């Protein structure tokens, strides 16, 4: 397909996934604060840290409070990664390729965007905030579902799948990193109810609480790391995402297993293989933060390689 069209589909999917993940983070934080209202400040700052855009926030808003963080992340049009910015870009990308995605997918993303824009002007109570983020999550699920149900598994769908899984892997690793970083230093909290609550919140933010419980029952840090990074079956686990991303990439190029024919396949293949043979002990020994940092850098390199291989302007 046209490089430009593939590029737009890839980014449309990434932006919707990004918006959904942001909504999840906020929702979970709101939930957590209901259990620990006095820890409010401690909960909002990590959210900003998780975005990686802390300098931008500090410059324009100063100290983190529930109100300004939620506004920054949800409705700030000048923040490139706010939910509304992501939706605008996703929809714009969809509009330029509406003939390549199904008309149902276009109509839904269009409605999603129009609804979110209209919501900005309504004043928000705590109740309506919950409703808002829940709806964002649901609309994103709907979009994914429509895409999956109405698009042939041709190159277009594969690029969309590639985009959303890479974004999801990035965001899952990010939320784990931030929570781990902010939660662990308090040694005295290990094994307490507070600790449990914090980690439950992390699991809920990726809709993984019930699945985790089914597999592991009691929460320990090790199991959380194993579940969110190395699990092969849970759809938001990093390993699962990379497996799916690599399959889509190989479907696009037609390369057989264990052979790479471009830099994107090489890098993604290497990263997926590393995860396939990793174990929790070594990750924690080496340091989770270091692991995630390295992981995110490699993901960025993969994104660059995808661009170079498929989207960049080439000479004939």
């Amino acid at each position, binding site marked *: 397909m046209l490089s*430009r069209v593939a590029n737009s589909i890839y980014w449309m999917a990434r932006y919707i996934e990004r918006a959904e993940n942001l909504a999840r983070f906020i929702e979970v934080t709101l939930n957590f604060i209901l259990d620990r209202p006095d820890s409010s400040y401690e909960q909002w700052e990590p959210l900003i840290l998780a975005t990686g855009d802390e300098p931008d926030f500090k410059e324009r808003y100063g100290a983190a409070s529930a109100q300004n963080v939620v506004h920054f992340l949800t409705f700030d049009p000048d923040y490139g990664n706010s939910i509304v910015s992501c939706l605008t870009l996703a929809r714009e990308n969809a509009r330029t390729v*509406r*003939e390549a995605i199904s008309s149902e997918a276009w109509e839904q993303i*269009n*409605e999603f965007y129009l609804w979110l824009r209209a919501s900005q002007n309504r004043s928000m109570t705590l109740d309506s905030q919950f409703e808002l983020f829940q709806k964002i999550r649901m609309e994103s699920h709907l979009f994914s579902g429509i895409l999956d149900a109405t698009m042939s598994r041709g190159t277009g769908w594969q690029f969309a799948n590639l985009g959303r899984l890479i974004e999801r892997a990035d965001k899952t690793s990010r939320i784990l990193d931030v929570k781990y970083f902010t939660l662990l230093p308090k040694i005295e909290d290990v094994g307490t109810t507070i600790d449990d609550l914090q980690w439950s919140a992390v699991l809920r933010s990726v809709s993984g609480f019930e699945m985790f419980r089914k597999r592991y029952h009691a929460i320990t840090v090790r199991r959380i790391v194993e579940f969110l990074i190395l699990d092969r079956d849970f759809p938001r686990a990093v390993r699962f995402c990379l497996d799916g991303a690599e399959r889509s990439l190989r479907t696009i190029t037609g390369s057989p297993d264990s052979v790479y024919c471009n830099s994107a396949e090489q890098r993604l293949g290497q990263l997926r293989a590393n995860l396939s043979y990793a174990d929790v002990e070594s990750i924690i020994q080496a340091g989770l933060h270091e692991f995630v940092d390295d992981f995110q850098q490699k993901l960025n390199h993969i994104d660059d390689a995808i661009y170079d291989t498929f989207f960049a302007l*080439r000479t*004939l």
Partner: protein
Amino acid sequence: MQSQTQTMTFGNYDTERIHDELFHENGTPRNGARLLIEQLNSMSIDEVIHRQQAMDRALMQMGITFTVYGAEEGTEKIFPFDLVPRVVEAFEWGHIEAGLKQRIQVLNRFIHDIYHEQEIIKDGVVPRSLLEQAKSFRHQCVGLNPPGEIWCHVTGTDLIRHSDGAIYVLEDNLRCPSGVSYVLQNRLIMKRSFPQVFMASKVRPVTDYPSRLYSTLAGLAPPHIGEPTIVVLTPGIYNSAYYEHSFLAQQMGIELVEGSDLVVRDGFVYMRNTNGFRRVDVIYRRLDDDFIDPQAFRADSMLGVPGLFDAYRRGHVALANAPGTGVADDKVIYAFVPEMIRYYLNEEPILPNVPTYICDREEDRQYVLSHLDELVVKSANEAGGYGMLIGPASTAEQRSEFAFRIQQDPRNYIAQPTLCLSRVPTLAGERFEGRHVDLRPYILCGKEGIWVLPGGLTRVALVKGSLVVNSSQGGGSKDTWVMARNEEEAVEAETTL
């Protein structure tokens, strides 16, 4: 549930002695409109309004928009749509269709002649001076031989009905006529709302337009190519007709490309794919001539493809419409079309032009200058209703400004008598009132022949009394129903959805 005050929605409708497309002067519905009026009369006005709103929502949801330049938001607006269609009887359509076929045949011959021997000028039918000053004449096209000697593959000709009841041609749009996507989507929405009327009325379908367009385009490919690669070339999402470009590409199942997606090498055109480059054989270009190739036309164009025109000249890629058609899409040249019909075909025009005064002619110019308050003055090359003076509605200041312009640049102006366009009932608040309409049928001209879409875009001036129907100046659209002549002619019989 019946409302208490159940009056017939058309009970108070008054044609005000202006020709109405759905009603006779005595208030009875015209033949083809009978079932429709019955249906509308059986609904309360609240139901009608409700249905109109549902249609508006559907359009919004489908994102059927266009961009208005100069508006504050500068973004997308829904092209307003009114639920009452215009109805055209079968026999009348036969007449219109024959006239359009005659006209497009002649226009193609004229354009070909102009870029070759210019016989029509040598024989004194069209003055050379008029041609030399034509802004859209492209010297780059002299001597070119497009496939089948066809230059205009897609044409939109604007028609109006005057108070004498006759249909006149208002203008030919031979470059990038738009609006057919609205025709198709309007029909889709109407079928959902009035399925019974469609079943009973035998309205001719419009849904085969995309496949007809596709065959027309495919027929232009160089003959040795088995399965030609066809694309739609768009200036991009900020173009006012972008929705249509995207819609047609999707309906035909072909790629929508922008200039930057194409590259020319060794006189062949290729598109940039994820897995390399793929040769393109036919381009349905929705880009004005000036912008298609910075090497051949405007050098500052970022929208075109360097080398495209060269590939076209060599016959390696076909362009629809061919570059250079603008020479006939000129309001002054328009005035000569009846003469062209006589010259090339030795026939009388089936569809007449609106009587036109050519300001370049001394006699006409004097008449125009002394009757500015009665005439509609148009600039030869501006589209969309801009650059126009509507005499009877103008101020003295506007008239004197136009008088000045005409004297400065007479070749660029024509004038026509104020027409009284026919009207169609249109929802205005809580009642139906007549609003002026025109009609733009679409004509496809390919190697296999000429095909006219049954119906077309009925544009309506939504403001009471206004004659300006253009989308860019507050007009709207309606569905157009052409009645089937007999049982053999295909109808929209299939159920909706």
